[in-house]
């Protein structure tokens, strides 16, 4: 869910683009299946974190079945807050581990 929000923070994109983006960003560690992706999308839509985007690329390179999504301002707030929370957690974890290494 977090990965999808991060991907959409870069700009509007459709499903397959999100999958590719997440995969690249995590160095191939997280590769979403479409079933998983749209389950996440459904929840993000329901919670108002993303909306469907009406802006579509030129018809020549588009597929009418595609769905494009955009992060809402609220979604952007949530992803920022979540990043901060994860950062704090990582920082706390790191300081504990460092301490233990020093005392050892």
């Amino acid at each position, binding site marked *: 869910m977090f990965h999808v929000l991060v991907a959409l923070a870069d700009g509007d994109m459709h*499903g397959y683009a999100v999958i590719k983006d997440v995969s690249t960003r995590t160095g191939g560690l997280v590769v979403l299946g*479409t*079933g998983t992706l749209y389950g996440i999308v459904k929840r993000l839509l329901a919670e108002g974190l993303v909306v469907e985007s009406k802006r579509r690329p030129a018809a020549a390179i588009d597929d009418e079945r595609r769905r494009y999504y955009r992060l809402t301002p609220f979604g952007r707030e949530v992803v920022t807050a979540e990043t901060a929370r994860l950062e704090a957690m990582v920082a706390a974890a790191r300081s504990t581990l460092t301490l233990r290494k020093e005392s050892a």
Partner: protein
Amino acid sequence: MTSRPSLGVRLFRALLRLLPADFRNEFGGAMAADVEEAGQHGARFWWREISSLAAAVLREHVDALRQDVKHALRMMRRTPGFTLVVVTAIGLGIGMNTTVFTLVNAVLLRGLPYSNPDEIVLVETYNREQRDDGPTSWPDYEDWKKDTQAFRGLAATAPQPFSISGDGGTPERAAGSRVTPNTFGLLGQPVLLGRDFREEDGAPGAAPVIILGHSVWEARFASDPTVLGRVLRVNEVPMEIIGVMPRGMRFPNNADAWIPLVPAADGLKREARGVEVFGRLKGNVSLTEAQTELDVIAARLERAYPQTNKSIGVVVLTFNASRTGANIRAGFLMLLAAVSLLLLIACANVANLLIARAVSRAREIGVRIALGASRRTIIRQLLTESLLLGCLGGIVGLGFAYLGVTLFDRSIANVTKPYWIVFSFDWTVFGWLALVCIGTGLVCGLAPALQLARTDTNEVLKDASRGATTGRGRLLTSSLVVIEIAFTLALLAGAGVMIRSFLGIYNADLGARIDNVLMSRISLPTTRYPDPAARLRFAEQLQERLLALPGVEHASLATSFPGEGVGAVRIDIEGQPRASAELPRVVRSPVVDTVYFGTFGIVASEGRLFDARDGAPGAEAVVVNQRFAEAHFGRESPIGRRIMVRPDLKDTAWASIIGVIPHVRHGDTTRDELDAVVYRPLRMAPPASFGIALRSQQPVATLSSGVRTAVAGLDQDLPVFQIQTMEENLALQRWPFRVFGTVFVLFAIFGLVLSTIGMYAVTAYSVGQRRTEIGLRMALGAQQSQISWMVLKRGLGQLAIGVPLGLALAYVVTLGMKSLLVGIGPGDPVTLASILLIVAMVTVAACLVPARRAARLNPTTALRN
């Protein structure tokens, strides 16, 4: 755009169909597009996609279901009255169904309470000549045991009444069983205390030991755990107590104590058939295979021992099949059929209610369809609602079922039933309950759901008030009412013939006065009363003492009294030799004293009854009943003719028939047919076990202590048992008729009430729907009677179709009950006609009320609204 999509893509597209409609409509296209865009990929890609899709299918369906349930619960809360009515109706239907299934499960399905009960079967001797199955001789049992491969083991048991005494307590009678030492091991029945029998306990000359049943241990020893090792006198023999069985264990025939089966010398003869054999089949052997194998063994024994084993075969059968008669089985199955009909009537009612409510929901559904909900989504939503109603009904039904089973259990508390038949809930019952709930939900919900999903969006949104009462909707409602009428007729007809047949049996004239009579039984041990003379002396002394009791008018001793069963014996008739092919002549033959007939108000229709001289050597005499006289002597008088009872015994003399009495019912109180009976005088064959009947003007129950004192005065160690009034005894014999009769009446009444309510509701509802039309007609000059007729016409139309259907169904139902009916045929015209009348009257009444209300409608108000 693309040429031919790859196999993977096509498979993926196909699998998308498994997603719930809403999710697929929303994202299915995008998913397909994404996968196509990804292009050609390896197995890993497809594995990831397919598994992710599978997870999504599961997740989204659960999610959709949760949404549906939430919505359904909200709808129910919005209409609590409606929900209450529907849940109660379904609950009652399911409750009765589950009650009866619990009984059926206990009586017909469950079997013995041991692991793999299906493997435990009875192996009985089958006499092809007499077409009768029964016990087996010890040598036959040993030969079967030696030669069979189908069984893990065979064991033998023999019932034996125990007189327990010698430990300071009052002498007591207990149902005992002699069993081979392997019995409990084969069953898989551990002892509660002490030890099981060992092989050496069953060897000739072994020290006598006994294992007590829980009830004896509890009643006689106050559950004392130190009882092991103590010595008890059982039938005059001191026996060491080696074990106690857990509560409820009463194998095989409700035994209360067990001793090892040690065949006595005369029990080793091949013609002495006295043991009941059972066995545990090997895991992979079927009943039929075991039967086939034993058939071969029995055929060989028949060739080897033609004198004793001519026409002797073997039959393998389950305990349930042997212990619950065909009548009881058929009775329970009929009950199950009846409650299932009842449940269907309840379902039709609920379906009609749901359809009626559908009108008020047509708008909601219309809006949802207009907003893009697919019809499948709507149907699923509505079915979820009705399934939920079904499940709630099931929970309520479980409560009713608990009540019903408890009541049934209590109503037959005094009836001796096989010990393993316990009316309790188990997983089979819960499984059935679940099936019934789901079935009920579907049956109730399907018609209304399909009807609603067809809602025409435009129509509904344009004018909500007119709603969904399309012609098709009315047809559906009418057909449901027709079905209700038909089912009710069938149910009532089944109940009707059943009850008429029960009443016939219940009120059948016994042919004897049985009021104010107290019965009891005693049994003389052969150790102390070895010969007929000793038994006769005891009987005469006892009779004197009984007559001396205050208030006693008559005291009669006999092997069996009117209404009681009598064993069958063989007879020969002088001057009527039996053709060799003919079956042996068998009659019922109680041994009675001289006051027997007087005690029960029986008078001779021809000849005379016994006096003190009859039965002495040289004065052998018998009294026969009318049926016997007709069967063997036709129109001729039987007086003075001679017959020989039990010609198989030596010392049997010819006895003259001195009198004929009208029919007195004995073992046939539950049958239509009468038995031929020959009464023998006490003096001719003094019995070792007999009953005592006391007639008195004072309340007979007060005599029981007197009987005990009289017997104890002659013999301290002789227990008196089965003390009850004759009326109680008779009621006990006829319990299935009383219980089944009551239950059937209840079901029939409930069915009638349900379908009447259904009819009324549907008619009243349609009147409500047609208010405007009725108002208009009245405004245009229609008479009140015309309006009434218009409403009534529809009800009568439904009746006209429902009745012939119902009659046909009723005929089939009663035909299926043929074996249960006594003195009444299937399709009995009197029953059918009266039921038809009841249903017609009730139906018309149910329509008449709304019809009259319609006629009294004020046209102005009706039109204004």
